[in-house]
């Protein structure tokens, strides 16, 4: 059975980021892939879609009098996504797993009477034709699979679930326009303000989607220099424990209530490995820790660990890595 799979594009106006390309890669294994954009897709985006074999992009045109800010209200996005899904006869709707996208997914599924899976790491078609999603749960301690029993499924897929791979055959995507007018319920909350913070131009990858993450905790005692140094040597994103963020030492934390990461490599420095923190990083492929306490809990889930002062270990590691890379 071939399905019609619809992928919601997060950043069509600029270019697609890795998580979107990852879901396009997964989508291809399930059926025919089409994309949905709430903004005019850029030439770069269309090139990426072409390389991923996407033959059709549905562009949603919201009413002109809807403010720019209101276009981001998740119930508005959800109604647009659901309307296109109906028009295109889609059976599977895929999104990346950000907090706003979980809201979009939930409301779209509510509208469509669809089954909903949040934070899937894998998707496959079972022998009986059912869509089956793999999820890693309980701080990475259990692998579960759930089957969707409704005709339509909505799934958010976590970052780094697969390596994005272009399709064997490319396509020239046609853009199909849809007029969607949001309901009064969708705009029941008013956007007072919406501020986009410039990424400080540090050139580091996004925490949620990076292949390598270096995170610092209370053990840094407020000095993140060694953490940043190692991250830059590795080309990694930087994160922190919640305690380090609440101290004001860094801005984003990894964990169950912060950013969930599942990179190829996670390095935790001066982080004890509290269950809340582990819940957000335990699905990482390789886990490395630096901690001066040989009994710290994070060592229980590590592949490699150094017992030592991070202020000594990290700069030495960074220098050795730079030497290896010849920079």
């Amino acid at each position, binding site marked *: 059975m071939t399905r019609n799979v619809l992928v919601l594009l997060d950043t069509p106006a600029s270019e697609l980021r890795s998580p979107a390309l990852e879901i396009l890669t997964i989508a291809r294994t399930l059926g025919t892939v089409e994309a949905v954009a709430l903004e005019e897709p850029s030439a770069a985006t269309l090139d990426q879609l072409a390389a991923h074999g996407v033959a059709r992009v549905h562009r949603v045109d919201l009413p002109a009098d809807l403010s720019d800010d209101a276009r*981001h*209200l*998740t119930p508005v996005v959800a109604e647009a996504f659901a309307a296109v899904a109906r028009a295109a006869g889609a059976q599977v709707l895929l999104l990346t797993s950000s*907090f*706003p996208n*979980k*809201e979009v*997914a*939930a*409301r779209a*599924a*509510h509208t469509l009477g669809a*089954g*909903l899976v*949040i934070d899937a790491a894998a998707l496959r078609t079972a022998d009986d034709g059912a869509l*089956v999603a793999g999820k*890693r749960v*309980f701080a990475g301690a*259990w*692998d*579960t*699979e*759930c089957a969707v*029993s409704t005709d339509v499924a909505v799934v958010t897929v976590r970052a780094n679930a697969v390596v994005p791979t272009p399709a064997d055959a490319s396509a020239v995507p046609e853009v199909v326009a849809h007029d969607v007018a949001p309901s009064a319920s969708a705009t*029941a*909350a*008013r*956007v*007072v*303000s*919406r*501020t*986009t913070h*410039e990424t400080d131009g540090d050139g580091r990858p996004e925490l*949620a989607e990076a292949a390598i993450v270096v995170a610092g905790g209370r053990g840094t005692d407020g000095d993140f220099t060694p953490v940043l140094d190692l991250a830059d040597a*590795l080309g990694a994103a930087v994160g922190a424990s919640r305690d380090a963020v609440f101290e004001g030492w860094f801005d984003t934390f990894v964990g*169950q209530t912060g950013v969930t990461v599942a990179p190829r*490599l996670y390095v935790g420095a001066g982080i004890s490995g509290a*269950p809340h923190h582990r*819940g957000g990083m335990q699905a990482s492929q*390789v886990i*490395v820790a*630096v901690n001066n306490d*040989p009994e710290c809990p994070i*060592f*229980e889930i*590590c*592949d*490699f*660990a*150094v*017992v030592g002062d991070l202020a*000594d*270990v990290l*700069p030495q*590691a960074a220098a*050795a*890595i730079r030497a*290896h*890379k010849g920079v």
Partner: protein
Amino acid sequence: MRIVVAVKYVPDIQSDRAFVDGRVERTSDDGTLNELDEHALEAALRIVEALPEDERAASEVVALTVAGEDADSALRKAFQLGVDRGVRVSDDAIAGSDYFGTARVLAAAVRALGADAPVDLVITGMAALDGLGSVVPVLLAAELDLPQLAIAGDLQVDAAARTATVTRELGHVTEVLEAPLPAVVSVTDHANDPRFPNFKLIMAARSKKVEAWSLADLDVDPATVGDAGARTRVVSAAPRPEKPEVELVVDKGEGGKALAEYLIRNELV
């Protein structure tokens, strides 16, 4: 002001959590009030405490859970923090509910509470630490057709103007949303610091009784919830294999180099 706070009874994240027959194993030993819902309770209590005396007296904070009888311990914890009423909806037919079944039962209970006197606000946690879906609040808003204000790091309620304003941090974006009451709000752990029960509250909590409701009380068709109504079902659940022993290096001056070598050896550089 009448506020309903949805609270979930979850396995303690410090315990060995497990699945049995595709369901989360829930034992009374390891069960607890979802920590993140303490922030929802705190938000509700503070809104009421900020009201003028007369309005305060007419206010009510109700903790609501959909769970088995074991969950009474979570509601008792809510009593000890100062909520006025605790309602538990239990029914054999609810077992195996997916996100939608859970939201449907919660919505029916909010409607039932609203039959006595209007509910002004529904507050939830940002996520249940077992399921971690962060979708129940949004589905609850959709079921009740109320404005949704999710992932609030800050919540301000203007009781006179009857509005709720939230600030939400979404990665590189900060949104401020406002909606008329009644509304459904989910708060994060940034929203406040939950209080600890004190002696007076613990004593007062003793006289409070959990109100147990069933689906029949709520006019919910059992076929639309639980296993019967679920749109997803768990087909397998297995603990992950234990990791091999950690390779541990004690730094005697070469620890950083050892780390770099490990990464190079494993082609991670």
